[in-house]
Every structure is written in structure tokens, then in C-alpha cells.
């Protein structure tokens, strides 16, 4: 109907999405041809997830049109998008862990055909055909929970193919894969493209998938800031477009001070999560811990704060033994933990900004059983001002804040307790570019004030810009220790994934 791209498989025009006053997407055009691989790049909070949610029918755009195979779609739902051949593979794959490979692959296509009963033979046959199509050998009767991550991803791809996918959207496809597994994935993507299946990679680290892609689209703060053939981009130019900055922040270098040891971790063990982890950290040091998804970095972080109980080992802070597996005792020992998932773990969403900070200081402001409200609120307000939280009203619910400001609220709660050590898990996940740099400044300041700071992250520029030292985990073990300023991003990525 007069649109320039009648051959396009996907044609999104002028997509705008506003949430409660925040513009997540601003007039974004996004076009995918059949058999084309597109990199959709952007930092956390750039709007790339929102664009995918709009395309897959999870969210309705505020403005703009979507055509799939030339047909104008209004009121798109996930079911209708899937019926039109648009399938999303989320980072966690959304598989049923207790079902077999065959059942997982055939499940959705069986549902789509409105079958009343599950036919085991037909399901196995569907699964076998799809696995053969991409040339992968996974036992059909294995339960998915027992498969390694890379195989789970392949099962998810097969499930999409069983639904006759014309476009597969892969969210952060490489975060949990080793280099060899990434190469196999790329081989399969090439195969699919030859068959006319289009692929969209959504990621904040895309260097790995550039070689199989035709086109790159970069989003920043909800706007499309770059689009072009994949040959025109490399890791450096991608980063520049994504962040809007030319160079990454300089590393703080190796830790120079002669401060005394603050934290001592000895032979910490938790079968299935991490084994024999030992390290030390000095007062004022910013220590990075990194590794692929599933390397044990998050379990270790939780164990340091008592949320995961290790089977054996010892944690000593300032010479004092910290009881294992007891978050209340860890907090009393003045350890703080800012979790990765702000929305479910970090914040009390329905509660006010002030309460979200004050909840950490209830003990200190209780006089004969009653709270000194004035002091409690005053102190929380002070910390929010010091961390420059921008809001018209501190008694508004914390959900009214942007990601960056929410993260400051989570930080303020712990800083108000005057911690000796702060563990920050993914400190800038879901935070816009500007706030991210400011949060990195805060982290460096905390170190300068003599706190011990542990940054858990797989955002390599973040680690390089904030940490004096980086520990690399792989398969639950500490495999590498790197002094700040002695390594490039590419080298570090290689050490994580090899």
C-alpha cells in the first residue's frame, strides 16, 4: 500500500512507545528482509528490548505501524505474532525444564494447531526433523534441565523452527556461550539464512555476531542513531554509537595504596555453584568479579552477603568472622549488597522513595520501641540529595523514577548504613548512558573514601573503567586475576569465554 519496502518481512515505521511520561522509543523505523540477519545494538535502557516487545506483540506501540509480510498488524498479540512467524528466544529461553527435548520442541507448534491431545509419536517426529534440519544431535528424550546452556539454546531455536518461524529474534544470544559454542551457533544461523529465515540479534555486545550479519541498527536513548551494512561497523564504532562517547573511561590502574586487608575469603565452597574460592581485598579497593552467565559470579556475590549458604569456607571482614548464610548477620557486619534485579530483589516498588531508603535504618532510629520519624526521614532525604536523585517528590512511589535514579535509591539504602564493604551486582543494568557514567563515578568515589567495593558484572567496559583488579570466574572457579589497566576489552572477553 504505497510503502517503499513491499518485499520486507518486517516493516516497522515511526514506532513510538511512552510509559508514564518516559519515552522508551521515539519514531524508530526498523526493517528486516527475508533471510537477513540484523544486529539490533544498544546499551541497557536504549529501547532495544521495548522495540522487540512491540514487534512480538507483548507491548502496544503508542504510535507507529507494524507490517509483517506486507500485512498491516494492529492490536498485535504474542500469539498473533507467532502465527505470523515472528518468534522470540529470550535470554532464559523460556523452556520447560521438566519436559524432554522432543516435548519442548513440539509443544508450541502442537498448541498452535489446536490439538486437544498430545501425540508423543508426532512430537518426536517433529523434533527429529527440526534437529536434523540444523544438523544438531541432541537426545530427544533427555530432560531439558539436564542439558548444558548451549544445548538449551539450540532446543529453543528448534522450537521456533517447529513453529515455522520466518523471523527469529535472539535476545543476548552469546552471554552464556563459550567461544566454540558461539562458532557453532553462527554456523546454524548461516544455515537458517540460506533457507530464508531472518534473524535479529539483540545485544549490547555484538562484535561476535557481526560476521554473519548484513545490517546493523543502533539505538540510543530510544532513538535510532545509526543504521548501515555490517561491514561498516567494528567493535569500536559500535561502542561509539551505543554510548555516544569516543573512548571508554581510563582505568583507575592497579591498586596503589598500602591499606590493610579488609576482606578475606578462604576456600568458599558450594557444590554446583562455585568451588574453592579464595581472595582478599584491601580497604579502598574496587574489585571486579566477572565471568559468563552461569560461571558462579552471582552465587558467589550472594554467598558473600549470606543469601546463599556455602558448605564450607570462611569469610573474614576486618579480622572478624562473618557467619555464613545469614544476610542479617552480614548486614550487621556492615556488608551491603545491591542486587542485580532491582525490580524484584532491590526495591519495594509500591512504596515511597523515602521508605525504600529508610528501611535499612529502622534499627538505628528506634527509641524505646518507637521510630524517630523526623530523624529517619531526614536522613533518608539527605542521602537521596547527596546521590542526586532527581524527583519532584520523595514520597512518590519508587516506580516513578528512571532506572538510573532507582539504582541510586538502592545505593542510598546501603550507604546510609555506613558499610565497610559494598557488593554491587550489575550496578548499571537497565540504566541509561548518562547515569551509567555517573554511577561509575560514584563507585570510584566510594573506593576513594575507603570502602571496599566489589563490582560483579559482565559489562567489560564497566569493569575496566572502575576496577583496580578483576577476578575472572569460569565453571565456578576463580581462573584468572588481572591488575587494572593491564588488559584490553577484547583480551578480557577472550579470558571469560575461552
Amino acid at each position, binding site marked *: 500500500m504505497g510503502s517503499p519496502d513491499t518485499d520486507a518481512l518486517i516493516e516497522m515505521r515511526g514506532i513510538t512507545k511512552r510509559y*508514564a*511520561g*518516559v519515552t522508551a522509543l521515539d519514531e524508530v523505523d526498523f526493517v528486516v528482509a527475508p533471510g537477513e540477519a540484523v544486529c539490533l545494538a544498544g546499551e541497557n535502557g536504549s529501547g532495544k528490548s521495548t522495540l522487540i516487545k512491540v514487534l512480538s506483540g507483548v507491548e502496544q506501540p503508542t504510535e507507529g505501524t507494524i507490517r509483517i509480510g506486507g500485512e498491516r498488524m494492529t492490536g498485535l498479540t504474542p500469539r498473533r505474532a507467532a502465527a505470523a512467524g515472528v518468534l522470540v528466544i529470550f535470554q532464559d529461553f523460556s523452556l520447560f525444564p521438566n519436559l524432554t527435548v522432543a516435548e519442548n520442541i513440539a509443544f508450541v507448534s502442537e498448541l498452535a494447531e489446536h490439538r486437544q491431545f498430545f501425540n508423543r509419536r508426532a512430537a518426536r517426529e517433529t523434533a527429529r526433523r527440526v534437529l536434523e534440519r540444523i544438523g544438531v544431535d541432541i537426545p530427544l528424550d533427555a530432560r531439558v534441565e539436564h542439558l548444558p546452556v548451549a544445548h538449551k539454546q539450540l532446543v529453543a531455536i528448534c522450537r521456533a523452527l517447529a513453529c515455522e518461524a520466518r523471523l527469529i529474534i535472539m535476545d543476548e544470544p552469546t552471554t552464556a556461550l563459550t567461544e566454540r559454542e558461539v562458532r557453532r551457533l553462527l554456523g546454524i544461523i548461516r544455515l537458517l539464512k540460506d533457507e530464508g529465515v531472518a534473524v535479529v540479534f539483540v545485544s549490547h555486545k555484538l562484535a561476535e555476531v557481526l560476521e554473519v550479519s548484513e545490517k546493523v541498527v543502533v539505538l540510543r536513548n530510544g532513538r535510532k542513531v545509526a543504521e548501515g551494512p555490517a561491514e561498516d561497523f567494528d567493535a569500536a564504532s559500535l561502542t561509539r554509537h551505543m554510548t555516544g562517547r569516543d573512548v571508554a573511561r581510563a582505568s583507575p590502574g592497579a591498586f596503589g595504596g598500602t591499606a590493610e586487608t579488609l576482606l578475606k575469603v578462604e576456600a568458599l565452597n558450594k557444590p554446583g555453584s562455585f568451588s574453592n574460592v579464595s581472595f582478599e581485598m584491601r580497604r579502598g579497593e574496587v574489585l571486579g568479579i566477572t565471568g559468563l552467565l552461569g560461571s558462579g559470579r552471582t552465587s558467589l556475590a550472594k554467598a558473600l552477603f549470606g*543469601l546463599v549458604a556455602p558448605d564450607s569456607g570462611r569469610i573474614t571482614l576486618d579480622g572478624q568472622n562473618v557467619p555464613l548464610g545469614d*544476610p*542479617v548477620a*552480614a*548486614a*550487621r557486619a556492615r556488608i551491603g*549488597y545491591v*542486587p542485580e534485579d532491582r525490580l*524484584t*530483589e*532491590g*526495591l*519495594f*516498588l*509500591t*512504596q*515511597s522513595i*523515602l*521508605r525504600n531508603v*529508610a*528501611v*535499612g535504618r*529502622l*534499627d538505628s*532510629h*528506634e527509641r524505646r*520501641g*518507637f*521510630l524517630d*520519624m523526623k530523624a*529517619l*526521614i531526614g536522613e533518608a*532525604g539527605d542521602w537521596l540529595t547527596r546521590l542526586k536523585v532527581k524527583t*519532584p*517528590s*520523595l*514520597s*512518590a*512511589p519508587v*516506580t*516513578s*523514577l*528512571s532506572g538510573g535514579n532507582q539504582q541510586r535509591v538502592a545505593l542510598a*539504602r546501603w550507604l546510609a548504613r555506613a558499610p565497610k564493604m559494598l557488593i554491587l551486582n550489575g550496578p548499571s543494568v537497565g540504566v541509561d548512558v548518562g547515569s551509567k557514567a555517573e554511577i561509575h563515578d560514584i563507585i570510584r568515589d566510594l573506593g576513594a573514601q575507603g570502602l571496599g567495593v566489589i563490582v560483579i558484572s559482565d559489562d567489560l567496559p564497566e569493569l575496566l573503567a572502575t576496577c583496580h583488579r578483576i577476578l575472572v570466574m569460569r565453571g565456578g572457579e576463580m581462573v584468572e586475576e588481572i591488575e587494572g589497566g593491564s588488559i584490553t576489552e577484547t583480551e578480557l572477553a577472550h579470558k571469560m569465554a575461552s
Partner: protein
Amino acid sequence: MSGPRIEPKLVESPEFRLAIITVLVFVLMAALSPERFLSPQNLTSMAFQFPEFAILALAVTITMMTGGIDLSVVGVANLSAVVAATILTAFAGAGVVGAAAVMWLGIAVVAAMGVGAVAGFLNGILVSRFGLPPILATLGSGLVFTGLAVAMTGGSAVMGFPAVVAVIGNATLFYVPVPLILFALLAFGLHVLLTRTGFGLRVTMYGANPLAALFAAIDVDRVLLKVYVIAGMFSSVAGLVIMSRANSAKADYGSSYLLLAVLIAVLGGVNPYGGYGRVVGVVLAVLSMQFLSSGLNMLQVSNFARELIWGGLLLLVMVINVTNWAGLRARRAPAKSG
């Protein structure tokens, strides 16, 4: 910018809406049957009637604040009353007067509240340590408590108390019914506990997001344990009021009170998913329910129809609350962040 406040404004809260509803119900009932509804006898009898289930509603309220519920409140109330009644009949008896009677009443009250505390502690252990869903844990424990009361009494009423026992449920102090005074004290106490103590704020925060409470290093097990102990002790006070007013104790008194107590808490604006609730709302809900109940009485609506009305009202209120909250959020959010 309004000054920093930790409480939301009353005018924009569900309680404000509820106050209007309460007045409307009162006016409606007064208009339908002015000479009977507004008579001093009716007003006095209402003031004697509602405290027993109102206290149970307070017990449900505090558990609902954590996103839980206590379905064992009536079971705890009856078990406590049976224990108190057994002490009063076995050691004192109807003939005892004076200091001895007061002493035995004191012992019986302490024993009843002890039973309430232990029962609540048991609920708390089931919910916190064993992580059972509160709705199932307290449904089961409520049956156990009722069963124990049946076993102690053989299912029949325990009666024959000293006259002084009637004071709890039937006397007045400066023209104010004693049960009403008890309810007012407990309501005020709960309000202060929830809004002015660290424990109260922890209860609210836990209700808002149990996982975040754990990550904020709140001792969640202890908070839950205390919540259910308080609910148990409130229930035992309600049991004592019922015992005094009935001048007897029985394992299956007040069986319709459970639904009513839950209904009042929800009608009072307590969020059944936890994290929000104000005692003033619950008090208003109690009043409007009592006005409605008396009105239905005067219109000679049968008891069975009344249960139907309570159940329907509970569902209706929850549907209205859910719809309104979503609408409220959509309307208010842009103004806040813009």
C-alpha cells in the same frame, strides 16, 4: 513540592472513599427505618455487637499486611475461650464472688492470651520456617484448634462462671460498652504499632516485596513469627469477649465471623497481596458492616441470605479495588514523573 512524608495523604487514599461509604450506609439505614435504627437501644446494641468480630478483623489485618492471612482466628478465639471457661468453671464456679472471682478471671484471661500466643506462634512457624502458604497453614491449624476445643468440651458449651466475667462483654464504663473500649485500645495499639515502630514498617515492606525484604537484610522469619503471634493474641481477646457475652464457651461459636473478619479487612482497604493497610480503614469498614448488618436485621433478612450478601460483597469490593488501583496509577503516574 510537598514536604517529605512517609505516609500517603489521607484524602487520596481508599480510606477517604470508605468514610463516605460508611456515612452513606448510616444515612440509608436511618432513612429506611428512622425510629428503629436511630433508637438508643439499637445504637447501644450495635456498640456491644461489633467489637468481637472487629477484633478478629484486626487480627486478619496484620497478617494480610504481610500478604498472608489468618483463617484460624475463630478457631483460636474458641480454643482460648474454652480454656478460660474451663479454668473458671473448674476452679471458681458460679458462686464465687469478690477478690477470688477477680483473681480467677485474671488467671483465665492470662491463660487464654497464652493459648492465643502459642497458637499464633505455631502458625508463624508453619508460615516462616516451613514456608507453607499462609492460607493453607492457617486453614489446617484452625481445624486443629477447633478440634482441640471439641476434645476438651466434648462439643458442648462450658458454662457456670462467676458473675464478674460478664464485665468484659456486657458492662459499660462511663456509658461506653467495655468491649468497645477493648476494641478501641487494640485498634489504636495496632495503628501505632504499624505506623510508628520499626516492626510495623518492616511488616509493610515485607508485604510489599518479600524478596526485597530478604535482600534488605530484614529478619523476615522473625517478622512473620511476631505477626502471627499478635494475630493469635488478638483472636484470644475476641474469644474472651464472645465468652463473656454468651456467658459460656463452645468450640463452634461465631463460625460466620471468619468470612466477616476477612471481608472487613479487605473492605477496609488492606491489600490482600500485602504492603498496604491502615487501621482507620478497618475501623470504618467495621462500622459500615455493622450498620448494614443491623439494617438487614430490621428488614428481616434471613441469616442465610446474609452470608450470601457478605460473600458477594467481598468479591465485589476486591474487584472494585483492583480496577481502581490500576486506573489510579495510570492517571497519576504521568503527573509524577513529568
